[in-house]
């Protein structure tokens, strides 16, 4: 797995939400969950051609999808924030990959800090680290995803795994990965995964 650059804590709503098919009316984009920036408040530059495609898919659909059918606004996408997940860096990496002359299969990873506007308590911090992995190739299946996750967790010493259907705006199918915690004597969520929507 090759490491992806994640050297920007500050991200535009475009890369953090819109390019990942998270609708502009989604509650996670609220003031409560995301750190929005006062200064710099807006991203000066967004990729022109790609932005137009994202707008179309949200408002009208595309690539086989019905879309969300709402009015997509550019100002909303320009809003700067502190990234809420490293998937925004994955989106950038995949966009770069898409613009290559010839497609080559890749495996990317990153481990870096993310920010969520939460009150601090025993199980929540406002900033924490996420480990992210992406595999891009032809003919990948859900079985492959499960296999890769199994190997990853085995290396960490976690062997009892179960997968549960979940929902992410940008992946379908999505799975939450659960592992049995001997100390707590129950299944706890150790990860989230999915196959990116076409």
């Amino acid at each position, binding site marked *: *797995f*090759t490491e*992806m*650059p994640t*050297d*920007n*804590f*500050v*991200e*535009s709503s475009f890369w953090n939400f819109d390019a990942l098919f998270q609708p502009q*009316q989604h*509650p996670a984009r609220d003031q409560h969950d995301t*750190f929005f*920036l*006062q*200064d*710099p408040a*807006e*991203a*000066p*530059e*967004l990729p022109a051609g790609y932005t137009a495609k994202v707008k179309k898919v949200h408002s009208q659909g595309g690539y*086989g*999808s*019905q879309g*969300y*059918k*709402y009015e997509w606004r550019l100002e909303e996408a320009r809003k*700067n924030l*502190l990234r809420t997940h490293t998937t925004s860096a994955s989106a950038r990496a995949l966009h770069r990959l898409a613009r290559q002359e010839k497609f080559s*299969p*890749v*495996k990317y990873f990153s481990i870096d*800090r993310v*920010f969520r*506007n*939460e*009150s601090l308590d025993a199980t929540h911090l*406002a*900033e924490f680290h996420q480990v992210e992995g992406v595999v891009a190739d032809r003919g*990948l*299946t*859900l*079985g492959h995803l*499960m*296999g*890769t996750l*199994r190997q990853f967790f085995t290396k960490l010493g976690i062997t009892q795994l*179960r*997968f*549960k*259907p*979940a*929902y992410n705006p940008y992946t*379908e*199918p*999505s*799975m939450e990965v659960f592992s049995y915690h001997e100390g707590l004597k129950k299944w706890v969520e150790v990860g989230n995964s999915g196959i990116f*929507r*076409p």
Partner: protein
Amino acid sequence: DEEFNELCFEFGLELDEITSEKDIISKEKGEEKAKGASDTILYKIDVPANRYDLLCLEGLVRGLQVFKERINLPRYEKIIPALGEGQRLIITEETVRVRPHAVAAVLRNITFTKERYDSFIDLQEKLHQNICRRRALVAIGTHDLDTISGPFTYTAKAPSSIKFKPLNQSQEYTASQIMDLYRTDSHLRHYLHLIENKPLYPVIYDSNGVVLSMPPIINGDHTKISVNTRNVFIECTGTDITKAKIVLDIIVTMFSEYCEKPFSVETTEVVYPNGKTHIYPELAYRKEKVKSELINKKIGISETPSSLAKLLTRMCLKSHVIGNGNNIEIEIPPTRADIIHACDIVEDAAIAYGYNNIQMTIPKTYTIANQLPINKLTELLRLDLAAAGFTEALTFALCSQEDIADKLGMDISATKAVRIANPKTAEFQVARTTLLPGLLKTIAANRKMPLPLKLFEISDIVVKDPNTDVGARNYRHFCAVYYNKSPGFEIIHGLLDRVMQLLEVPPNEENGYTIKATEGSAFFPGRCAEIFAKGQSVGKLGVLHPDVITKFELTMPCSALEINIQPFV
């Protein structure tokens, strides 16, 4: 209980907690108050955000029963009343500027019991919170049809000319009075701002001038439904027509089960300002064709087309094999507004198959692994710095404005810091532009540890940069502090020399590094130097100024070093 947990897990629901009313009250108010409360077991279930059809007991049970193949998915029918007999909702022009869209439907001859009534109200609240985005996008109103007579008019009027008795109140109020009345109401005050400052407020009247509701705030008391209501008029108004239609479809499909003719909904005609009419609810059934091969390939299984069709039918997506046997035609019911792409269908097929039944395989992708150079450098440095006797710290990237400016004797505008618009506390106002405050705060929190305290951190700082596409960028900094009874400038200097040695940067002017005496606001005058390497200034080192030390609540002298390591990659 175990069985139910398993079922939820397989289906994609999370069984959060198994409790009872008695337990809940016990936990919140103590055992005494809980005496006499119900002991019946309550399940708290987490429903995914895109499944509006599972938000009420009726929908959840229906979904699970179809999943277990105990019942067939009911077919939702529209009953279009004879000409002149159906209800009509007329929308006037005035609504365009405040809340333009409205849809409506009728549930005929419905039988409520206390549980069904509670569930009905509960579903509306859940939908309001969820897809309606706290009533901003759509607001739902339900009314006892027998207390009013159509046709109904949805219009917008000045606040002073709207007067009615709101739900559960004993007298009439004008709209402006209603705003004041609910300003302190813990539930409704959050919605007042949606229409408060508009010149006209939305309002729905019947043909006799009785107010049905003033969306999105409150319904009228006159039309309130009770357990004895037999005919319900439902209206959804809002700013997003797609969502209004979805919300209406969900409510009627869920509760039409209790109508005399189960799963049948009476339509209403909505008349637009331009004269066009539309029949609601749409209750549209959509047909999609998917290749069975596609489903098998995406999941990594190999099921026959007919077994795939059976799996999908279990997920409320009625399917059958068509054509020459390779394609599956799927009928998407109005309850599944979340199916917007073939991949949604693939996911449902996988869920029905059982995620944990899928064979795990490793993709045959050959790639060469690589670490980012900056991270590789960071990892190497960290090990050697620990070997030099310094302890690593990991601190927050967000801090208060004082931390990076006033406490270091600088002005905030000179720092080019990135500011946060909505911090929850003063501790998270800006993103750090230097690692120093974090380390000093760490020392302050660890005063009881034996001296000397030698800490370091290699991590990102953030500054504004108009040249990037978002307006800011990260720099990887390395910072070390030495805290002891004597400042130990020579120790910090020695650390710098060691780091440069590790980075293979020789200590000379032409192609290496040098230090030049300078002044720094955070440093003791005469004990500060700037470090130059690779043709630029990369940082400073020195003894910290006593003011800085006091402001961070420390008592001993401290020397520090901070450099940007990006040029050394």
